């Protein structure tokens, strides 16, 4: 009996002792963190191009076909990072860019060659990504807007996802849609003459109204071409162009020095796919017409990337892309970039890229189309040609920042591009990352 009592007493004390244990507060519990500024990127670039045979002049190899372009581009991107109560990383990125360009061909939208040559493009962007590091997944949405001078405005939306595999691979996909509105600015000589408007100021001469590239109505003396008055900007009809794409990529770590990626895009465009101020001259006529292209296009590019860390200082970045579409263009792109680490925080990256494409079945040079052609363009971007792009970049990323400032990464890159169409261009870019 005593043994039973002692056993029960022991059990009671044990239970009481068990309840007397205080559960310590879990100080390791995850706490969400609101979005905070993570980094700021400033990207500037300058592009300079010389070319002839511009599409605005119907591929005319003469002086009217000048295709010189300069473009100064500046953009800022602000990245905010935070963690939600479920431990997922939230990244909100907002950007704003502005391009200022001059284009010699733009002047020839007006047949006299005196049209406005300059323009500005503005493009804000917004992206939001949620990444779950424990599961190795991420999801993102983004929006983009762009407005170029008076030529077009474009709205873009996208959604993306990615998932890591158990074998050091990652699959990702992205669905994008771009919804463009192209302002139907025609070459000045193709704007219908307002025959109803006659008699100006008592001179007895007829007047005509034309719409310039800047969307302004001008009143001209029909006989002398003298500008009689410049009106306010007018509303010009627009045509829509929608572009949809599904992009898929699979990246794989192959060994501790090598990783590769397979990239596949499937793109579909519908709507007005030409530009209303691109002229075409037929072989049997001196009068220009506006280029005419099908209203649908399907593109299928497939690319491979392979990066290899050679020794301790050299990286080989290889890329190949095969492209085909239903307009008859097939192309191959090969590039190799070799970043060489002079120090762990300073590298020099020479690169070379070769590109070759076949012509679209709708392309013909200046005055080689005939009126029997259903579709026609003299835009040399759709011709058969090859191009080479060569240059170098430098990257500085010291651990304490450049000169011990918040500037954590400085990149500078220059490239020289030349095509067999006589187009030559140079581009220099500067990217600054502040942390």
């Amino acid at each position, binding site marked *: 009996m005593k043994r039973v009592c002692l056993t029960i007493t022991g059990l009671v004390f044990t239970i009481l002792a068990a309840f007397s244990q205080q559960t310590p507060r879990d100080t390791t519990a995850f706490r969400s963190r609101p979005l905070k500024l993570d980094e700021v990127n400033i*990207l500037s*670039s300058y*592009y300079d191009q010389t070319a002839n045979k511009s599409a605005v002049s119907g591929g005319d190899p003469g002086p009217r076909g000048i295709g010189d372009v300069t473009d100064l581009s500046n953009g800022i991107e602000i990245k905010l990072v935070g963690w939600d109560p479920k431990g997922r990383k939230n990244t909100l990125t907002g950007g704003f860019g502005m391009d200022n360009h001059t*284009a010699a061909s*733009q002047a020839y939208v007006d047949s006299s060659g005196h049209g406005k040559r300059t323009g500005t493009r503005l493009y804000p962007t917004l992206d939001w990504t949620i990444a779950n590091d424990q599961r190795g997944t991420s999801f993102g949405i983004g929006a983009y807007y762009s407005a*170029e001078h008076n030529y*077009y405005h*474009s709205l*873009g939306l996208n959604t993306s996802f990615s998932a890591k595999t158990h*074998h050091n691979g990652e699959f990702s996909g992205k669905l*994008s849609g771009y919804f463009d509105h192209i302002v139907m600015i025609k070459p000045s000589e193709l704007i219908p003459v307002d025959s109803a408007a006659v008699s100006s100021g008592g001179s007895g001469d007829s007047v005509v109204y034309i719409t310039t590239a800047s969307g302004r109505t001008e009143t001209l003396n029909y006989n002398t071409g003298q500008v009689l008055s410049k009106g306010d900007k007018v509303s010009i009809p627009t045509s829509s162009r929608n*572009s*949809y*794409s599904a*992009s898929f990529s699979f990246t794989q770590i*192959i*060994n*501790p*020095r090598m*990783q*590769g990626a*397979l990239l*596949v*895009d499937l*793109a579909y*465009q519908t709507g007005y796919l030409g*530009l209303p*101020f691109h002229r075409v001259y037929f072989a049997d006529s001196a009068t220009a017409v506006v280029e005419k292209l099908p209203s649908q296009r399907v*593109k299928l*590019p*497939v*690319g*491979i*990337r392979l*990066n290899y*860390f050679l020794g301790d200082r050299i*990286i080989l*970045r290889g890329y190949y*892309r095969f*492209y*085909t*579409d239903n*307009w008859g*263009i*097939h*192309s191959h*792109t090969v590039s190799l970039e070799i*970043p060489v680490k002079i120090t762990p925080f300073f590298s020099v*990256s020479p690169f070379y890229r070769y*590109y070759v494409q076949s012509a679209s079945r709708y392309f013909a040079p200046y005055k080689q189309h005939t009126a029997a052609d259903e579709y026609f363009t003299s835009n040399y971007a*759709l011709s058969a040609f090859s*191009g080479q792009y060569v240059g170098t*970049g430098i*990257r500085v990323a010291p651990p304490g920042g450049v000169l011990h400032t918040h500037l954590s990464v400085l990149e500078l890159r220059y*490239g020289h591009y030349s*095509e067999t169409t006589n*187009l030559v*261009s140079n581009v220099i*870019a500067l*990217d600054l990352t502040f942390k």
Partner: protein
Amino acid sequence: MIIKPLYVLTAAVTGMYCLCSCQPVKEYQKNRLNDAEMTLSNRRIEKEELNFQGYREGSSGANGGKTGGGCGCN
């Protein structure tokens, strides 16, 4: 015309992945792979050149850039 190169490409890609016989790589072995210049996407500084290549050339895509949208008017 289109199909033949696609077959060749598909075979090449499949062959590359099969022949490489990926090794298991631990986190501590990824210091080289995590280098900023080993990234498998285009870098931000390449944005302008991707932009002009997309408009000056008849093809685009499979490089992280756009496959449509925008004007490229000039």
